[in-house]
């Protein structure tokens, strides 16, 4: 990591970008590309790949300057999987060519990504997946079914894990690929969810040919690559930096202040309890970031997604109750296929229902608690009967 660049240097580069491409007169896409090329996309990435090899802690300096200047930002809700999960995995395991090809359009939002991991039979036990990839010359031929694939209907690319060797224990026979969603054999079907929308999909893969050049990491080592993705997924779901009252608690607090007629003692006590918990969760996240900058990453990362899920659920549940008659209503049940994954938009009922997914997507809270218990607290693991058995011999 370079120590040449400091906050003042980053600020100067940001000002130069703004001078060269004034946001007022520059198109959104052009601005984002120029920002990437200036190394101000994610400053901790390598030079030439949207970064400056600078400390991660300098990113907020850039973001603040750009926000103040009214510069366009890439919408993290639209490109969340690419930004939060595909990018770090490609950076960590990709070839130079893959990095050059994928990172720029990913970051500017030109290309949306989705995650073809879960399957009907492999959710929490992701390593049990059965989608097969069979080598055929320079290609892999992929057959299988994926499910719960958020944004597959708008995605250009997918990160995909598939079984390349059924004869070894499940964690060892998996490989990791980049799948072109426009290829023949990829079929995306909407899967309507509790909110009425079809935010996720079923994806059927039939004889899909993926060139070996789009494999990430060694053959059979895909589980390790997937760990990078999954770790980043949890951090990106739970780890957004927010101001005080920045999350869902802000909406409820606003309603409370503006509609005194809704107030009761009982709701007041519950609101205050949750307000304190939301503030403490925010501080825990902030402390975690400071630890990272100081080079002492703590295990609290695993806890952030847990806290985020529970808080979102409790706060949105309280909000529905607080609203009384209005809480018994819903904005719109129309079946749509939204372009973005929206946790907080729309009304209280939507927030309540969507938040139920927060403790399931990206690893359930139960599984995350197991991870905390076993990897952080080093408690003895559950007796397991699936470790040393060849995948093909497991009960399904």
């Amino acid at each position, binding site marked *: 990591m370079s120590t040449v660049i400091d906050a003042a240097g980053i600020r100067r580069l940001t000002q130069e970008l703004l001078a060269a491409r004034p946001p007022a007169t520059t198109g959104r896409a052009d601005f984002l590309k120029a920002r990437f090329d200036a190394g101000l996309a994610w400053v901790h990435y390598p030079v030439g790949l949207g970064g400056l090899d600078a400390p991660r802690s300098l990113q907020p300096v850039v973001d603040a300057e750009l926000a103040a200047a009214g510069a366009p930002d890439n919408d993290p809700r639209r490109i969340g999987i690419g930004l939060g999960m595909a990018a770090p995995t490609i950076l960590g395991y990709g070839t130079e060519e893959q990095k050059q090809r994928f990172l720029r359009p990913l970051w500017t939002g030109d290309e949306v990504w989705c995650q073809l991991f879960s399957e009907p039979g492999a959710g929490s036990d992701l390593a049990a997946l059965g989608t097969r990839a069979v080598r055929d010359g320079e290609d892999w031929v992929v057959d299988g079914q994926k499910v*719960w694939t958020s944004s597959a209907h708008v995605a250009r690319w997918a990160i995909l894990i598939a079984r390349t060797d059924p004869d070894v224990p499940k964690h060892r026979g998996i490989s990791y690929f980049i799948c072109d969603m426009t290829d023949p054999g990829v079929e995306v079907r909407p899967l*309507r969810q*509790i909110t009425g929308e079809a935010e996720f999909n079923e994806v059927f893969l039939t004889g899909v040919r993926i060139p070996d050049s789009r494999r990430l990491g060694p053959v059979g080592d895909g589980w390790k690559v997937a760990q990078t993705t999954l770790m980043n997924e949890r951090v990106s779901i739970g780890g957004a930096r927010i101001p005080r009252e920045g999350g869902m608690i802000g909406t409820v607090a606003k309603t409370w202040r503006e509609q005194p007629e809704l107030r009761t003692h009982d709701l007041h006590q519950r609101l205050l309890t949750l307000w304190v918990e939301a503030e403490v969760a925010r501080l825990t996240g902030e402390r975690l970031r400071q630890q990272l900058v100081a080079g002492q990453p703590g295990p609290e990362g695993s806890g952030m997604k847990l806290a985020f899920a529970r808080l979102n659920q409790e706060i949105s549940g309280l909000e529905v109750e607080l609203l009384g008659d209005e809480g018994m209503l819903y904005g*719109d049940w129309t079946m749509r296929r939204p372009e973005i994954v929206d946790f907080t938009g729309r009304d209280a009922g939507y927030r309540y229902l969507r938040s*139920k997914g927060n403790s399931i997507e990206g690893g359930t809270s139960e599984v995350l608690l197991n991870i905390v218990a076993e990897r952080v607290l080093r408690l003895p693991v559950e007796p397991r009967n699936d470790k040393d058995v060849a995948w093909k011999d497991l009960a399904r």
Partner: protein
Amino acid sequence: MTVQTEAAQAPDLLYSEAEEDLRSAVRALLADRADAPTVIAGIESDTPYDLRLWESLAVGIGAAGLLVPEKLGGQGATHREAAVVLEELGRSVAPAPYLTSAVVATEILLALGADGGPAAGLLGELASGSKVAVLALPFSTPPADAGAAMAGTLERTVSAVAEAVTADVLLVPTADGLYAVETAGDGVAVQPLVPLDLTRPLATVTLTGATGTLLADAGPAAEAVGRGLLAGAGLLASEQLGLAEWCLTETVRHTRERHQFNRPVGSFQSLKHRMAQLWLEVVSARAAARNAADALATGSPDAPLAVAVAQAYCSGAAVHAAEECVQLHGGIGMTWEHPAHLYLKRAKADSIAYGTAGRHREAVAALVDLPAP
């Protein structure tokens, strides 16, 4: 009233044989006419109500007239039997205006002492299932607000009225007394709202120059509306119980069958304990709901407390069971095809209906002399 009042005579918290027979009949009907795919298809159609289902329930089984004495055209049963019907309706989340018409509206008319007169006529029609009547107040109104709800005139707009869409008659409380207003009459507009709980429609009712039949003067009307809401809140607990029970049963079934990590996920102790905890809540909810139903049935002076306790407890138990049901089903629980979402939406809306748990805890505070600081 003091806390000890009821110690003398213990309420009957069990089910009688007749109640179990009634349950079987209702359950068989609902299994036949209101299984989950049917309910999901129904809520997506233009006619959420299966009129044949209502007819079979109300007329065929005679459930609509359970609370009404035989001489007035009913079955002469009690709140205990009506509660059993509601348990089954909760278990199937079937759309039917049972709670609103056969319990709340019916109880109000009964409370007016309907010996002849328009109230008696209407009561007979509700009991026979030939008409549906609902109270024109927001679904969230707790029994304690009955008096305050009597303000206003026949010129008014009321939001979030449950089942108004299917009602033939609205019971409209005004400062002058309680009116029966035909929904088909002039000056009545029933505008459907988009409900969180798709199985129980809500509407805004607007009255402009509507006319109605005066059923009772302000004094008795206020008391009757209070009794109607009390019965509604009390028996809603049974709906919540049935709902919670379905959620637990279904979650146990799913987690026994769903394998991950080479074993049923229900074999993980962390899940087992949560389902065991839910079982404890269902058992407790049953005692509380039965107590409320029995107190209403016997006209016990303990009824207001029994109802407040049941609501304060069962609301939370139902929401908890439904939330756990979604969570322990994993991704499937988040889909539209799986019925778990119907239960979550019903449980959450029910937790506001006839007063939130918080409002009922306040009622408890007043009734047992535990005042706020």
